[in-house]
């Protein structure tokens, strides 16, 4: 567990949006989905997940409703709003651009530019 990387600041929101974009999820489901799509390589502090969920809900990027979970318990399910979908798109594009720029910068050798 110690070799897993902790989440880069600011990326947790993006990960959550991405996780929820694949389908309606409750809080624990979000955690599992994030772990799944990051191939278990990121360490997420589970408690920190919720403030992020509430923040996204308050910003209108996620919609929440109460339903029944697989184990027949009342659970709060989150899903992406149209705003959330747009935001996810923007943030992903930005992230990809950033990755391109950063990796180019890190691979550059003197004289190449």
């Amino acid at each position, binding site marked *: 567990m110690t070799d897993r990387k902790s989440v880069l600041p600011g990326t947790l929101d993006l990960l959550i949006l991405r996780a929820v974009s694949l389908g309606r999820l*409750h*809080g*624990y489901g979000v*955690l599992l989905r994030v772990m799944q799509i990051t191939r278990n390589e990121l360490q997420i*502090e*589970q*408690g*920190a997940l*919720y*403030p*992020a969920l*509430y*923040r996204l809900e*308050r910003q209108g990027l996620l919609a929440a409703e109460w339903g029944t*979970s697989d*184990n027949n*318990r*009342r*659970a*709060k399910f989150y899903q992406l709003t149209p705003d959330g979908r747009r935001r996810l798109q923007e943030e992903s594009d930005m992230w990809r651009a950033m990755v391109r720029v950063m990796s180019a910068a890190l691979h550059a050798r003197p004289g190449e530019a």
Partner: protein
Amino acid sequence: MLGSVRRFIWRVVRRGRLDREMSDEFAHHIELRADDLVRAGLAEDDALRRARLEFGNVTAAQESAREAWGTQWIDRLRQDCRYALRTRRRNPGFASIAILSLGLGIGAVTAVFSVINALDFRPLPFKSADQLVWLAEVTPLGHDICSHCPFPTSGPTLHDWVAQSTSFSAVGAVSSGSFGWEHGDVTESLTAERATPGFFAMLGAYPTFGRGFVAADTVRGALPVAVVSYEFWEARLGGDPRFIGTQLTGRGGTRYTIVGVLPRGFRFRDDAAIWTPLQATGTGSRNDRLLTAVARLKPGRTLAQSNSELEAITRLIAGESPSDFRGWTVQVGTLRSLLTAPVGKGRFVLFAITVLVLIIALLNVAGLLLGRAVGREQEMAMRTALGAGRSSLFRQMLVEGACIGVTGGALGVWLAVWAVRAAPHWIALDAAGIAVSVDQRVLLFALVISLAVGTAAALLPALKIGSLDLNDALRRHVQNFSQQVARTSNVLIALQVAVALAVVTAAGILSRDFLEWRYFDLGYRPDSLYFTFVSGTGERAKDPAAWRLVAEGVRERIAAIPGIGSATLEYRNASHPTVVHPAEGTAQLSASQIPAVKGVDPTYFTTFGTPVLAGRNFGTTDGPGSASVAIVNRAAARAFWPGGSALGKRIFVGDSISNGELLIVVGVVEDAERGELEERHWPMVYRPMQQTKLYHAAAGLYVRCADCGNGALLAAERAVRESTGRSATPFKSVIDALDTQVVGRQSSAVILDAFAVFGLLLAAMGVYGSVAYAASRRVREIGIRVALGAPRRTVVQVVARRGLIVAGIGVGIGIVSALLLARVMRLLVVATSPMNGWILAGAALLMLCVAGVAAILPAIRATAGDVLIALRAD
């Protein structure tokens, strides 16, 4: 925006439910995680523990989740408030002084603001009051009563305005006067107004019972009718609707049929009990300006449009009769300006003074909080050590201040409600006929002021606490801090002294202005002067000669009563001659320069104490057979013969230009007649009663007492009853009558003085507290000095000097600002009285004494006792 506000409120309201849901959600999460772990092979107990461990700090997660909702500051505020209240309970003395100071200050400001609110902000209590305007003529420059002031208009001019203007949907007029109500065997003088038909309807005031006036009421020969106010009807007529149709007897026996009762609370510029119809005829002189014209603008018309229309109409009229309009102009003003004009600007002056007093209270509380902050530095340090952020301490202090402010504000509002209810006429407001009350706007004002003042008072200590080095504080190394605080507190002391002196100076100037008016320049001595009215009854009243004998008999009987110095009869405006002018010369006189004529007897001027300035008084020889003589007052002499002597000149007095008589002026007396609250005296012509053919069945009877202690006035009343067959209304003191006239001014002066004294006391309290505190902080230093062998007297002197220097600086600033203020006031306000140097000096001395005593007492205590105790002190 609204949506997010609604969501926010929703979240605040549902905070409890959100909390529960959050706990649910967390529990669910941990449960699911534990299930997974069990599936992965862990024992159930281990799985649950592991799940909890992985989830991390639940409370921290909840905290940051709540922060995500954005409602957390409410919890914080609640916490701070609870803390503030707890601190207050721990220190009730401090809290009650602070709350009392602010409460009195806020109460004063709120009370005066409620007056300003009623007069200047709240809609007037009439239908669509913003459309109502006042049609006024404007006096020429140098007019006797007032230069360039809005003035009533005349019947003919009003008639032309109505006929030719298109701006107004309705025009009405009122004219005030008095109504002599004869009931039983007394004549009671009631405040009365006359109003044109349609006036009430224009204001949207429809009689509760009966009807208002109609055009038929004003035609010649119509039955005299009257409408009464609801209050008069209820209090004096028994509140019986059947009273409609019955009659009231007016002066001279005219019987008025009551046709209506006005709605409850209806007032227009005064408290008229009875209204009679007024006909604005097109006949008469344009110089008789007696009608106050009010109109309703047609929808869409502006004040400016109606103004220029009226100006155009009036230019035409003035072209036809230029002598009546020399220098006169017209103006359309708001109804509010008409109603508030008689009240003057005193309310703004009072407001300014109360704001200054509130500032003193604020400085007081700031000083108290500052002193206490020093005592609490350890508590603050402890709280910081326990994890309170600096900003949270700052916030805590401000919330404490706001709590004190709001509590003080609640007290203040209570005081203001009481003041407004107990004394509506205190601040000279009845003149405007507008009810004053504490309404929502006033409450909002008080709330804002309370919060602002409370927070402002806490700001300084809060900043100081912010700069506190906590490690030092914890180690009780507080010298540095308390020195800093001492500097700040010195500034507060100086400020307080300065503001207090400014308040005292301003109040001194203004209240002298208010008060001195009362007995200033009356032209007679009002002290030990009493008056009543005598009137004849029945047939005898209709025979002038017989009546005059009776009245003269009464006067002689009364003058002979032991204790009565002299007595005189006054036949005021017994008949108002329409033509009075100097027999020679062609002096052009304005309406207000035409004298009133009064019939008096030889004892008149001596009884009133009015000095004869030139010539002689009337004598018993000025009878029907001798030459017709007159005495004029200075105002008339100046108007008739500017720059020359009046003695020996002749005056024409008559009903018309052709029908009158010539009088020789034998004396000039001091001006002694003027209207209520008027600045200028009226021009007067006095004639010996014996020489006039004036007929009047009622006279004023004035008595100057030499010693009225032993029932002399009662004996005089008995004499009146026995001689005339009617009981006299009880004698009234002229001073009392004057006081009711100027009650507004007088109480304004009293209120002003009270505020000044209150401000001074408040400042003294604050200065004492701050100086004594600063001195007591130096007890240890004093101990060291004494231990090192300094003579005790020297030490006391040193300590006292420091307190005095601070107060002295304040006094210096205060005197300079007071002088500046006095100069500004003389420029801006009506104030004419010079600044009273003694008051200022006294106030300054008081401040110095207070500061001196406050500084010396702790020093004496420290030096007198055991040096070791002083050394061990903080």
